[in-house]
């Protein structure tokens, strides 16, 4: 570990009042009616972001299956998307070439690295723990979690980290999370097409409960674009009629994009238990029928 790579921020430990915390996280004693209850397991069936109906939006996969959906095994981001500055477009184009050759390019996900926002939204299952002065977001993939400090500001000097420095506040029925300080490394990316980012990356996420029918429609719309994964478990409880969780997000990065752009992802209630997914023991290469050849010894060392 590089122990110098840390965000030197002060967490207001002294501000935690335990009894109030229990009430806040329990989900049953929401004294403040304006704070939405995001508790429980949430899941989605696709990895991509919702395409924009209008205005600047995320990249679309140029590689399609015969049924018209995005080909998850050939990730060719639309490098002609006008949100991309030339340097970023070239990186996306080159990633696409690698993928078209049926090879995996290094991705934060297959390199077992933490996924920064908004890329972390690709993970299929998550839960949110709401406390009085922070929100912790847990992700099923490789036991990742993010911590969001509430009602505070970013420190004057942020040491870049994989998940950046996140602060948040409730705006009516919406949790707004503002993240900066996401470090750049070779292979840094904000989506599955390898779209790079610079140190100027700034992500604003807005989490809000939506009507169950609206969530169902949003998920189905996403599946029409991306298809339902065939190599991953599906965690969504399709019979659940209650509310869904929608995250609208806006990405600002003058070093990479010509303009801010926005998108959304929608979660529905998960019908699965929260399992263990350890990245380091995953040998799947995900291309159909492919499994990484792990070196082995015929005789144990000990």
């Amino acid at each position, binding site marked *: 570990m*590089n122990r110098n790579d840390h*965000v030197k921020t002060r967490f207001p430990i002294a501000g935690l009042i335990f*009894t109030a915390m229990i009430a806040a*996280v329990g989900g049953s004693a929401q004294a403040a009616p304006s704070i939405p209850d995001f508790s429980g397991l949430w899941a989605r069936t696709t990895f991509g972001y919702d395409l924009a109906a209008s205005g600047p939006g995320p990249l679309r996969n140029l590689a399609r299956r015969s049924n018209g959906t995005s080909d998850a095994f050939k990730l060719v981001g639309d490098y002609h998307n006008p949100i991309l500055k030339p340097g970023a477009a070239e*990186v996306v184009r080159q990633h696409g070439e690698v993928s078209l050759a049926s090879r995996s390019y290094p991705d934060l996900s297959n390199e077992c690295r933490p996924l920064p926002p908004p890329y972390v939204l690709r993970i299929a299952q998550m839960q949110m723990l709401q406390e009085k002065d922070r929100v912790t977001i847990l992700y099923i993939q490789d*036991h*990742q979690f993010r911590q969001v400090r509430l009602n505070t500001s970013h420190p004057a000097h942020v040491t870049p980290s994989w998940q950046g420095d996140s602060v948040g506040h409730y705006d009516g029925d919406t949790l707004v999370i503002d993240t900066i300080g996401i470090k750049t490394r070779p292979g840094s990316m904000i989506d599955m097409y390898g779209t790079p980012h610079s140190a100027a990356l700034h992500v604003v996420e807005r989490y809000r409960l939506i009507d169950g029918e609206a969530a169902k429609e949003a998920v189905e719309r996403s599946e029409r674009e991306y298809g339902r994964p065939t190599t991953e478990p599906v965690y969504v409880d399709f019979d659940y009629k209650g509310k869904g969780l929608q995250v609208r997000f806006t990405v600002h990065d003058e070093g990479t994009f010509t303009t801010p752009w926005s998108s959304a992802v929608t979660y529905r209630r998960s019908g699965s238990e929260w399992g263990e997914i350890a990245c380091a023991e995953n040998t799947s290469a995900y291309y159909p029928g492919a499994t990484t050849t792990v070196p082995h010894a015929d005789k144990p060392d000990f």
Partner: protein
Amino acid sequence: MARAILRRSVCGVIAGVVWMTLPAKAAQTAAAIPDFSGFWARTSLGFENPATGHGPLANLNHRANGASNLSLLAGDDKDPILKPQAAEVVRRLAEWGRRDEAFPQPSNQCLPYPPPYIASNNQEIQLIQLKDRVLILNMFDHQIRYVRLNAQHPAKLTPSWYGDSIGHYEAGALVIDTVGIKPGPFPMTDMMGTPFSKQLHVVERFALVDAATAKKFAERGEAENGVVAGLNGDGVEIDTEHQDKGLQLTVTVEDPGMLNGSWSGTVTYRRPLLDWAESVCAENPREYYAGRDTAIPHADKPDF
């Protein structure tokens, strides 16, 4: 194993019934439930020896100051608590240490750390106490353990890296009972590589201790296992001026498949000066034995 789980399940049911018969509010009062919130840190690794009873396996290699040499791990394979097959594993792993080589273990293979190994090889934790569960967040490789409160182990367990953990509050302490820990590729309960079997059963007890006690135990841990952090702005500096309570974890380990009895040890945390650092195993090229970074292959020309 099945019987052991059944026994624990029955106890869990009884405890659960007792718990459920208590008035809900009374059972959840702040007085009954200690507040473990915030960051907790320590500057050493390993377990502190208990005042009485059998302690953790000793490292036979020591530094000049008498502390365990964590860069040269050679567990005491003659410790009578080890069954022969466990002693043989410890002996072979110690040979690696004597050759100045690191033997594979969860921390250098970027695998999840099973309990109690995770307590011995980590420096900062947070406990998030919810109504029906407790989450233990670990700084090393952002690992999370989930503890279901006032529940019982399922009759049929699918072994997992962290096992199945249930807990309850008892006399100001959080008591966690874990079974079902899978013996993965490198099953070990400590940094000496003491192996475990499917019968591993770990009981952890988290309790607040006063600042003086925390200091005493933490300093004992540093004397026994050395100071390995908190020196270079690494996020685990102890706040020596603002200590109210410390957090002490007592682990008790039994494993009829590998051990002749149970052993226990403590890990004592204090308040750190800063937030914790991001610690990502997959990007760590450090060879702690050799005191250098691994020579990672590189290309002079980028692929694209």
